[in-house]
């Protein structure tokens, strides 16, 4: 399965988180919301100006700025 950066994912594309390459507060916030390796996610859409991104995981919807999504690598089908 190819590994891409979350920013490169298209709307409605699904994948599984492979790695979260962020430490400190950003890393903590991302992980606290359940974005840890092995988690299934689906891109729900993007804001009108294409940033931030909304994604669906563990049954709820979460938003991230693109530059924050850059730290997340996703395996896509």
């Amino acid at each position, binding site marked *: 399965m190819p590994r891409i950066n979350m920013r490169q994912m298209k709307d409605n594309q699904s994948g599984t988180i492979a790695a979260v390459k962020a430490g400190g507060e950003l890393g903590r916030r991302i992980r606290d919301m359940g974005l840890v390796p092995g988690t299934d996610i689906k891109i729900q859409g993007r804001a*009108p100006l294409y940033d*931030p991104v909304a994604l669906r995981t563990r049954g709820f919807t979460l938003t991230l700025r693109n530059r924050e999504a850059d730290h997340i690598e996703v395996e896509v089908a």
Partner: protein
Amino acid sequence: MEATLALAGNPNSGKTTLFNELTGARQHVGNYPGVTVERREGLHAYNGHSFHVVDLPGTYSLTAYSQEEIVARDFLVNGGTATVVNIVDAANLERNLYLSLQLLELGLPVCIALNMIDVAEKRGMIIDTRRLSELLRVPVVATIARTGMGKTDLMAVAAEMAETAVYNEPLRISYGEDLEIALTEMEAEIAAADFLTDTYPPRWIAVKYMENDLQILERGHAADPALSDRLKARVRQVADHLKSTLDTYPEALIADGRYGYIHSILKQGVVTHTHSQDRLYLTDRIDQVLLNRFFGPIIMLTVMLGLYHFTFTYSEVPVGWFESLFGWLAGWTDAALPDGLLKSLLVSGIIEGVGGVLGFVPLILFMFLGIAILEDSGYLARVAFMLDRVFSTFGLHGASVMPFIISGGIAGGCAVPGVMAARTLKSPRERLATLLTVPFMNCGAKLPVLALLIGAFFAHNEAWLMFGFTILSWAGALLVAKLLRSTVLKGEATPFVMELPPYRLPTFKGLAIHTFERVWQYVKKAGTVILGISVLLWAMMTFPGLPDSEKAELEARRTAILESAPPDAVEAVADGNTAALSEPAIRLKERLEALNAARAEARLRHSIAGRIGTALEGVSQWAGFNWRVNIALVGGFAAKEVVVSTLGTAYSLGETDPEEREALSDTLIDAPEWSPLVAISVIVFIMFYAPCFVSVVCIAREAGSWKWGLFSMVFNTVFAFSLAVLVYQVGSLVGG
């Protein structure tokens, strides 16, 4: 018996709804010391027990990154005997249990309220509460906070826990081989040295060192620097190893471990899905429209205009009641008391001051109600989502838009409710930058001043200039926000890792309590300070009064006027007879009025405010302001519309009603020291200089420190003056 119940849970888990359900109106909202996080507590009576219920701030985790998390954790750890009711959103079980595990790792007496069980069922999730309770080894009660279902069962469980004072062995989660060896060693060392163990469980301390938790590292260093350094060295060793072998961080493995543990529990027959998780729920369908690239912004604009109208149009009626009430009070006092200082203090200091405080109440009430509806329904998070791209460019947050709009982003708002609306912002630096820049917006009180000057000097381009100054206020505010965020409020943007909660109908009870508590807080906390300052400002505009020589001179002029007029005219004017005055009587009346206006001008010039204005003329002339303008600007600190009436007094026109300003407008056009350039310079200064003192009080309160109130006065004035000087000097060069 009496016991403390602490409600802990994620944002949007229905925690506050449960709190309202338990305490009703018997609640108190305050602040935790030193921070701006709201502290809500109340009482609940159950079966002879009296519970002191504390609604902890909603958090996703118990790290030490946000004020909310630190406050919640400190309360839980130091709260001593509190029984913890952990509200868990059943439809969102996995993520909500992440916080539950952290409560259990602390060894707290926890019971779980599995809330919104109906929503979970609708989503096809069947949750076996008994199985969940067995696996977590804590009581689990299914609840629906909105209807009160399960409340009694929950309180029965809590009462039993409080009575038996259960002590839970701290939960031990295995974090994998790489960490466990180090954690076990560290735990042993911590336990042997009794390192912070009077407050926290030893393993928890070891885990927090591993997570690089700043608060615990600091406390550890204070307690035993040598041991703290040894622990840190061990963590560094593990971290280096993880970085080189797995390219990951210890705290990442800890989060993995917790989610892994949750996963293993849920797999053991806790949740059964009756249909696919991927189907679209109502919320998703609504979002397809509300977040649509094309319709989303249009709907958002409509909603914001609606909120704006709701706040400012519908509050006009009660604002009008307050105005007539205080107008009547002032009139009654005016008639009942003899002229003098006492009357002036009562009318201009106290009645206007109290009226000023209460005049904002309807605005604040409508604003909080409107925002509460948007927030509780889940739409505010969508607004932040759609606008974040714009606002984050300037170091702000998508949610900053509400305070800006309410403060006058659409000309005519008010910075007082605007500053308070910044409460919806959870990221501290973005919030401060918002608080400090919203007063730049063209609030309703600046409009009469702008209208006066634009009307006098640019009568043909009124609409365009008004629009231009609205754009200028936005540009100024956003650029200053950027400036602040790169200097005094420097720091990384707070991550925009935010939940878009499902749309929910707000509950009436929640809205009513929410709105009422905040308005009451304003009246109680801000009101007293505002009244005090209003009296102080009255004194500044009144004292020390005219010197005796000038008093005598004015009196002599009055006598001369009266003596030169025919006696019957004097009598007619003295009678206050307004109908059918004779020609000489009308002339006499006019001359007396002119003299009164001259006296008012002289008094103002001799007052403290007047002296400040005169003393500043040397500096202010750089921007083209004479002493009369200076005095008016000092007066504008009380409220921006006061600039008009003070300017009227300073130009010997008597009190000028901000709504009837033709005479003043004509005077300014004829005055040699005024020109279109001076008008623009004054307008620019008024837009950006120190916020009115009511806003300053609110900024200080919302920022949690007077330092920021003072900052906004000094910084804004310097900034506005620099702009005004720039406008005037460049304009003079180009034009002259």
